[in-house]
């Protein structure tokens, strides 16, 4: 039997995240895809997997497999869209890895894309994002995505006796990190007063707890190490894992932890043959401050209830013991939902091949990315390793 070779990232590409008024979903997807293909030395692509959450609702466009293939001159190639709410991007990456590991495909192109600003009213974006929750038992009653996370935040704060300030450390660090990142959406610093005085979105969740709305696309070429053309910047996907939890938040017994995130972490670590202490750099899903903290805990980096202390201590800074989201994370780099998981993994791949530019941290060897769909109902973890 043929030995199992790890899937390898051979090429990376992404667009800036912003309100791209002049560019369509197709324009963004093809821009990122072409950059990734060029970065990989333009190998023959056997399949395309598109990660996207909201194109049907917001853009009136489904069948993105065909749309994206045609937009980059690859009509004829097998191509589908994969959806797992805000984790659609990393879901696409995981299924690309499985495709390559099947030995049926040599090279797979992953494109995560979201074009959110084609609707211009907040109420409509809020409605679209709420489709990640349970329509019949949550959304029907007026649940919004922030409101469900706000209930988790209240529960977590009560369980561990956290103050409003404690949730501010993470968004403040994310904004600080994004200032010199050219593809980031919010490139300005915020301070604790600004955080505490930001408007309430869904009490106790404030505006500065929330990732912004934006458009963007990110792409990866995933291949086998031996088949890669450009071998100077390969990064191995050493392990991956995913898990689900109840669709509705109310059907979980413990609101101050993310079970699916814990399971996905265990699975990814087991496949990689690594432990949490091996991480040199971390990408967490800080769509809301509390979810960022719960990610750090599920990854086994800090004890439950202690994530805010870890971030406040400076250990999560670029120069700290374990840098977290050096490009600014969802909060400041941006969160074009179905593209986010691909951005996380693309940024890690650049870090692990010393190509991250101003956000480069010193000599990382192992990185992990956690991407969360829903309020923790569908979680994907990828562990990346430098190729020597």
């Amino acid at each position, binding site marked *: 039997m043929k030995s199992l070779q790890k899937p390898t990232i051979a090429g990376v590409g992404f667009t800036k995240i912003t309100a791209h008024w002049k560019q369509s979903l197709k324009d963004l997807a093809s821009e990122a895809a072409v950059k990734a293909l060029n970065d990989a030395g333009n190998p023959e692509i056997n399949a395309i997997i598109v990660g996207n959450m909201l194109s049907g*609702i917001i853009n009136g466009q489904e069948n993105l497999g065909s749309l994206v293939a045609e937009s980059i001159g690859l009509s004829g190639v097998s191509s589908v869209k994969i959806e797992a709410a805000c984790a659609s991007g990393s879901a696409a990456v995981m299924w690309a890895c499985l495709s390559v590991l099947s030995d049926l495909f040599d090279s797979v192109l992953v494109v995560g894309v979201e074009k959110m600003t084609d*609707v211009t*009213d*907040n*109420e*409509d974006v*809020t*409605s*679209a994002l*709420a*489709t990640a929750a349970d*329509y*019949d*038992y*949550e*959304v*029907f*009653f*007026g*649940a*919004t995505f*922030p*409101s469900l996370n*706000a*209930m*988790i935040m*209240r*529960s977590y704060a*009560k369980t561990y006796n956290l103050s409003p300030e404690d949730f501010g450390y993470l968004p403040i660090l994310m904004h600080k990190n994004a200032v010199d990142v050219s593809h980031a959406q919010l490139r300005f610093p915020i301070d604790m007063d600004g955080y505490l005085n930001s*408007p*309430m*979105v*869904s*009490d*106790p*969740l404030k505006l500065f707890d929330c990732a912004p709305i934006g458009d963007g696309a990110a792409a990866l070429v995933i291949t086998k190490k031996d088949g890669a053309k450009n071998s100077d910047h390969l990064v191995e996907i050493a392990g991956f894992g995913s898990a689900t939890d*109840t669709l*509705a*938040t*109310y*059907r979980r017994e413990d*609101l101050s932890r993310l079970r699916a995130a814990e399971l996905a972490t265990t699975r990814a670590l087991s496949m990689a043959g690594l432990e949490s202490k091996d991480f040199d750099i971390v990408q967490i899903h800080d769509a809301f401050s509390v979810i960022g903290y719960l990610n750090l805990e599920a990854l086994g980096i800090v004890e439950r209830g202690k994530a805010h202390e870890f971030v406040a201590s400076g250990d999560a800074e670029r120069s700290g013991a374990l840098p977290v989201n050096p490009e600014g994370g969802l909060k400041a780099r941006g969160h074009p939902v179905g593209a986010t998981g691909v951005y996380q993994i693309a940024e890690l791949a650049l870090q692990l091949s010393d190509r991250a530019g101003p956000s480069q941290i010193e000599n990382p060897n192992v990185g992990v990315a956690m991407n969360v769909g829903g309020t923790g109902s569908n979680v994907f973890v990828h562990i990346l390793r430098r190729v020597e």
Partner: protein
Amino acid sequence: MWAYRLNIPSHWRLLSERYRLAGGYCENCGHKMFPKQKICPKCGSEKIKPVELPRRGKVITYTIVQTPPRGFEYYTPYILAIIELEDGTRVFGQLTDIEPSEIQEGMEVEMTIRKVRVSGESGAIAYAYKFRPLE
């Protein structure tokens, strides 16, 4: 934006859940659930019977929505909560007959039927459970 239009068939087929808190009871392990599922999430048994859940419970956690989705602008701000019923089953819904400043975790509430949403000027008007403070 059609994502928030109330779809009449989906409301109609859930009337027992929305008017009477119809849930499920596992005959194998005794677990109660809302809504009723095909398989018990605790023990995996398929022997699930319909059951009406208790109408009293307490607030586990809550939020006050200041940024509403389409269709809920009129009600804003409104209160959403997770309620643990007397038998331990959890449900999610709006609190009513209460000011935001009066809510506390652990407070006792009871089910009532109220108008939950109106879908556009000529759309369906949906009634369902909300929870109000226990007198």
